[in-house]
């Protein structure tokens, strides 16, 4: 039983990260109808940026905040400079796909060039215990349930996700900006007609996604204890799985999907020896199953077109 709880906790920690990155994917998908293949590498760049600030004496919390801010600017610039020119109406989606694949490779290479090709120790933005010979310290214990202790790492990751969800809910449901974003996502043509600046909204969508990615990337690096060039590759695959499972246009779906995928992953490694080391199969089997029954994902909206 204790072990089962440990697996669930590990799943929740990873799930928070998959969910956060999936949220970034969903935000871009909702406003632009695009799946951002480079989302993971953008987050990697941001994580390195956070690390770089810490090496210049900035406390980790502030470093992540700076990184989120700069990443949002970067996201908006990417939308305007790289994505916009290839997404004009009438152009094939394949053009964007190729641009994104290019970004996937280029941003990883640039991260290595600018920052480091090595695994660099990443400080933790939550309480940690340090000891001699330990540059970043270990996550402190948050609370004990029976024989199982929950570390601050899992707590902080889960809290971050909850905070992120709250922020997005308030932004999308309670602000004018959110209304405009939703309007563009729902019906770009009509939104434009009622005077919403759709092109600005697209930039805002990318900026938000890049900011969320920065948060996810920095948190996963802090959890793993280091940031390295391969950090986000696997995380991105799981985030895709999470978004596909939950429905590409549903933030709630992304969160639920992230948790399901991560807990399934952890339980598979723990209990199903036959699938050990190919545990990626499980989330994809789940997706296949869900897409067969509900092609729009668990929480996705069905699009009805009038003819």
């Amino acid at each position, binding site marked *: 039983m204790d072990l089962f709880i*440990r697996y669930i906790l590990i799943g929740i920690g990873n799930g928070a990260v998959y969910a956060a990155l999936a949220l970034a994917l969903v935000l871009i998908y909702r406003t632009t109808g695009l799946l951002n293949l480079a989302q993971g590498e953008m987050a990697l760049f941001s994580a390195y940026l956070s690390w770089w600030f810490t090496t210049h004496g900035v406390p980790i919390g502030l470093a992540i905040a700076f990184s989120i801010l700069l990443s949002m600017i970067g996201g908006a610039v990417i939308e305007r400079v790289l994505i916009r020119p290839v997404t004009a109406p009438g152009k094939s989606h394949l053009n964007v796909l190729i641009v994104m694949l290019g970004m996937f490779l280029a941003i990883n290479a640039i991260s290595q060039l600018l920052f480091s090709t090595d695994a660099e*120790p990443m400080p933790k933005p939550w309480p940690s215990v340090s000891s001699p010979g330990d*540059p970043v310290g270990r996550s402190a214990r948050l609370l004990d349930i029976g024989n199982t202790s929950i570390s601050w790492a899992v707590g902080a990751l889960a809290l971050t996700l909850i905070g992120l969800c709250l922020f997005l809910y308030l932004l999308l449901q309670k602000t004018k900006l959110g209304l405009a974003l939703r309007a563009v996502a729902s019906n770009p043509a009509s939104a434009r007609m009622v005077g919403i600046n759709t092109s600005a909204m697209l930039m805002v969508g990318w900026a938000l996604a890049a900011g969320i990615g920065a948060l996810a990337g920095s948190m996963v690096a802090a959890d793993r204890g280091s940031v390295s060039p391969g950090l986000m590759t696997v995380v991105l695959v799981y985030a895709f799985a999470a978004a596909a499972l939950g429905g590409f246009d549903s933030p709630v779906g992304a969160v639920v999907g992230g948790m399901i995928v991560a807990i399934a*992953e952890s339980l598979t*490694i723990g209990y199903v020896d036959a699938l050990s080391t190919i545990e990626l199969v499980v989330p994809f089997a789940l997706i296949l199953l869900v*897409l067969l029954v509900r092609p*729009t994902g668990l929480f996705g909206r069905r699009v009805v077109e009038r003819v």
Partner: protein
Amino acid sequence: MNRSRWRGPLALFAVAMLLMSSCSSRGDDSSDDGGDGGDGGNGDVESSIDIDDCETDPTAEIEGDTIKLVSSYPQSELVGAFAEIARGWAAYFDKVNEEGGVEIAGKSYQIEFEDKDDVYNPQQTASNIEELVGADGSNAFAVFSVVGTANNINVRDFLGELCVPNLFAATGSVAWGNPDYPWLLGSTLAPYTLEAQAFADYLKENQPEAKVAMLVQNDEFGATYEQGFRQAIEGTDIEVVAVEEYPSGADEVSTQVASLAASDADAFFNGATLLACPDALTSKQDEGWEPTTWVSATCISKTLMILAGAAGDGALSFTNLKDPLNPAYADDPAMVAFKETVEQYRTDFKGRALDLENAIILYGYVQAEIFVQALEAAEAPTRLAVMESVHNIDGFTSDLAIDGVSFTTSGGDDPFLGESLRLVQYDAAAGHFSEIGELQDWEGETLSLTPEDLVNA
């Protein structure tokens, strides 16, 4: 908006990622095809190399006065850290050249070398080596210090058929004992089975009823650890109570370690390498699990152990070379000379910053030292003579090796150099491993300690 349009590319992407991960995790298995059973244990110690089928003449003498060596190893991305090995051997060859070169059968030769980046990709290694050596083997005398097990396996057929020596392969695979490939020789890195043997020996003495949990990579590297360890504990009261595998390339193994911790094992063989190694140690600490711990010798690295930090404290491993991080060697004359030589000749190397405390520079340096000794002991400046010389190294030493360590080979019966070692233990507060216990000597025993199918992989 048409959602289904995206499902195709997404599926393709997902499949590509899966393929990538399965390819990388199965890289080593591809060698199964090349083994041909390979049970012909050719017993003759002297001149054990059959040259009848050679596509080039291995008895041809070097023309001119340079020996051309070529190599392929990772020089970019995360794996680019392995390039530091080459900084070490390049510095030593530079020094030898400046001091007049290497003398074979009364004539002096300069050592020239050329290398290419393979980003640790075995396919890239193969095309690099084919280009550097030439289809007829005429562009280079020998291949030196190719990094990676799968990478060396990918070139051993090509080089074996040409009869071009592939020397000091930079991994501890036991496959370098395969008698089908007499033109391939490993380096001073200890064969992986000896690690398993060393940990078993340590437990026999200190924890004779140990329950052992093992974390291993799901390939031949991990299988060598696991099978080697099981063989080493036969007939003892030590028991393997849990084994978890992780896919090669994974850097997050907390679930595997949680499962191992739940087995109540009181000893832990951490066979993980690269980032999975420190992650296993920190996960172990997170679980509150405190077993006697062995870490893979591939994890003895400043970068990796720093990531483990205090979680690595007390971890055991072994080595045969002096550790530049260890302050005990700060004033050691050989260590001082080594650092001066590297600084003098190779402060600049592939645009990488020089860190003289990085142990793999020293490792590369020692390989060059031993190779030069073997070249000078060769009877003639031919590939065959050099190959016979490296196959009959009799107790070479290096001042950079730990006291008492020597390097010996004996034809096909004992092609392994690194068989005498000392245990080391990590001191997290000091940030380095320190030697403990007596010198362990398994000279000539690796083949008998290793399951045969692993050697003939």
